[in-house]
């Protein structure tokens, strides 16, 4: 019996690594996938209504990046949906009827995006400008709907609801309750804003590099200013939403919150620990502790009692390693968010007070890093919410170890290695393609013209056989 249990658990570690790896890869494609269409449309709108051909060129180039990204995201997303079955069949068998609802909506959104991106990309030349713009208007809501679906499913794992369970089987589902669980409110807004901020910073960082390399024309200014302004304007909103989310997590998902703040015992006057780590006996090493700040943040009073990790059974809360990962990830996310806020304040100050873009080299150096910083922040956020839920796959209801496949560990290790190799190849091809595009567009800007989509695997046809 003992050995049976061990055998069943063998695939657990590689399964968790594989899920973490494929999810972490896919999440990198999400910000541009959801938010780039909006930036592109904004640019196209500027081009149409201000009669600015440069803005139209920028929009058209972004749409190509959008489509190539979509194709890569379609593959990594398909992999993820199969992994639910390959790695976690018991989770789906037990809770698919409720957990799957969000994905059904996401499936619909994915479909709409696929079709309208095709029309949008192929329609640049032959649809009238306004008709083309109208086609594009379907993309932001489709991205929004997709994000809603996935976050609804994730929120359900964090704060499950809307199901009636009888002897282990879901016998009834309240669709609305299952779609809109407690965590959805904050997860959705926090992540949606993060996506738009990230897309803004990432796109702008490309043109910050161009500025540093000496390009100072209308093209560079426009392509930098529009996305950066959006990201900068959203940053203070995110600080507020992030703060509200943390407070909601303290009451909805107290074990996760205890891990975030490395709080060992339940207490008032709980300090906020920046950095540092906790050991198995609950002692905090390194790190800067700010007295009572955590209690103050949670309940606006130093007397607020914050639950500690020891108030949960040892096998029902994240282990020490997981706690430290969560704490570090959270600190990285907040740290990067604050850095982004400072950079945004600098930008907005100059924009609003002096009615121009910054001219400091240091500003553009930091702006060039803001894209990578945003990706790291998004990853950290996901790590916080996913690792912070351990050892549960459905919070308080189903353990990760009870949901995992019976497949032999070697099988999962092998598929994990294969996936890592193939994903590395895809990343290499993807980046090479983007670099080639960028080179060609630079060449075009210095003279020769051609449609930006030509020669891209996801692009209109060149005439074959010529």
């Amino acid at each position, binding site marked *: 019996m003992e050995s049976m249990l061990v055998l069943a658990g063998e695939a657990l570690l590689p399964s968790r690594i594989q899920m973490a790896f494929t999810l972490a890869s896919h999440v990198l494609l999400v910000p541009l996938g959801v938010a780039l269409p909006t930036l592109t449309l904004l640019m196209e709108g500027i081009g149409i209504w201000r009669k600015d051909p440069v803005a139209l060129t920028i929009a058209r180039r972004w749409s190509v990046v959008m489509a190539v990204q979509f194709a890569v995201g379609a*593959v990594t997303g398909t992999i993820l949906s199969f992994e639910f079955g390959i790695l976690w069949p018991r989770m789906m068998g*037990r809770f698919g009827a409720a957990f799957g609802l969000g994905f059904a909506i996401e499936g619909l959104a994915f479909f709409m995006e696929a079709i*309208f991106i095709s029309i949008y990309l192929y329609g640049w030349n032959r649809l009238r400008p306004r008709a083309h713009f109208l086609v594009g208007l379907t993309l932001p809501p489709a991205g929004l709907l997709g994000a809603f679906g996935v976050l609804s499913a994730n929120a359900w794992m964090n704060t499950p609801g809307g199901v009636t369970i009888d002897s282990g089987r879901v016998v009834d589902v309240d669709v609305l309750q299952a779609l809109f669980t407690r965590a959805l409110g904050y997860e959705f807004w926090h992540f949606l804003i993060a996506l738009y901020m990230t897309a803004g910073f990432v796109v702008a960082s490309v043109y910050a590099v161009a500025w540093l390399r000496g390009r100072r024309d209308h093209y560079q200014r426009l392509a930098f200013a529009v996305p950066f302004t959006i990201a900068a304007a959203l940053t203070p909103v995110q600080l507020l939403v992030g703060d509200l989310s943390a407070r909601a997590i303290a009451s909805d998902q107290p074990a996760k919150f205890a891990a975030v703040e490395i709080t060992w015992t339940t207490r008032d006057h709980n300090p906020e620990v920046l950095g540092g780590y906790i050991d198995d006996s609950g002692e905090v090493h390194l790190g800067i502790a700010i007295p009572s700040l955590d209690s103050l943040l949670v309940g606006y009073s130093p007397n607020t009692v914050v639950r500690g990790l020891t108030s949960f059974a040892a096998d029902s809360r994240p282990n020490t390693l997981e706690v430290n990962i969560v704490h570090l990830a959270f600190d990285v996310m907040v740290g990067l968010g604050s850095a982004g806020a400072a950079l945004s304040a600098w930008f907005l100050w100059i924009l609003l007070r002096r009615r121009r873009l910054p001219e400091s080299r240091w500003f553009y150096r930091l702006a060039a890093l803001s894209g990578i910083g945003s990706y790291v922040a998004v990853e950290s956020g996901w790590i916080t919410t996913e690792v912070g839920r351990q050892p549960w796959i459905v919070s308080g209801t189903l353990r990760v170890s009870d949901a995992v496949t019976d497949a032999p560990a070697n099988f999962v290790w092998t598929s994990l290695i294969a996936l890592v190799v193939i994903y590395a190849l895809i990343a290499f091809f993807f980046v090479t393609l983007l670099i080639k595009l960028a080179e060609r567009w630079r060449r075009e800007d210095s003279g020769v013209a051609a449609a930006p*989509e030509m020669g891209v695997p996801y692009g209109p046809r060149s005439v074959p056989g010529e």
Partner: protein
Amino acid sequence: MNDPLANASAFVLLLAITAYSTAGGVDFGAGIWDLFAGRGPQSRRPRELIDHAMAPVWEVNNVWLVLGIVLCWTGFPLLFQSVFAALYPLFTLALIGLILRGAFFAFRHIAADPRAHYAADLVFGLSSLLTPFFFAACLGAIASGRLAFDQMSVAFGLVSLAATAFSGASFLVGDARRYGFDDLVAYFRRRAILAGFVLITIGTLALGAIGLEAPALLRSMLAGVGLPFVLATMILTPLVMLLLWRRRYVWYRVLTVTGIGSMVFAWGFAQSPYLLPGQLTISQAAAPHSTQLLLLAVAAVLVLVIGPAMALLYYLDQRGALEPPEA
């Protein structure tokens, strides 16, 4: 026990599988012909046409796959669990083929070195065989009710390869005609007819295999609800071949899709009311009614929104309105 909502969801699931088999099949079929195009200079033109035909739908067919998966785990969680718990190796192989194919289709556009280009062609072509074979093998393992990789899986896998090669060639004839490349029309016409013969042969053998392995399934395919669809496939496949043989280029693509779709329907209807023959019926595996209702609502929205959008895309595409202007 009859359950109209669950039956409707099961039908939508069958539609998603059918859509992937037909639309995805054309795409995989093009990949198979890419593999068989060879290596020398004579392979250049067919390969360019294949590239050209695939580019607009690159990875878009995954929407059907994702839709099917999501319908399955949400609408029929027990089916999903048993199928994946047993068949995960087959799904993994199909998936690996799927990503390799997408990645190397992109890569051959950026590979400058001829050897790297050739390697990309090879991986792309081989993975075009791998994925349809193993996806169909899963359906075979389901159809036998045994959830194991056996003769039924192999039979289904081989039929799918022949069917995708057939539909791929049939559609490439259409693409070649649009650009007026008479040599390529002839090239793919010959291959479509050849693939048709192979499909008929393998299909007949597969019926024999089904008769040996799952006689109940064969009975309802030949003397039950599956019959009209079996007949449709048996009539339409030779008809498409005849049309191409006589160079009557009308309706051949629609009839190809209808023929392949009928094949999937023949299997799906023949095994109803079972999702897993002998083990799990539609109503046993079905999620609660509220969940089924949401799935059907999603399907309805899909038809309402996607229908006109697809029509627009098809219309623009056929009119050539999506082509870039002559440089």
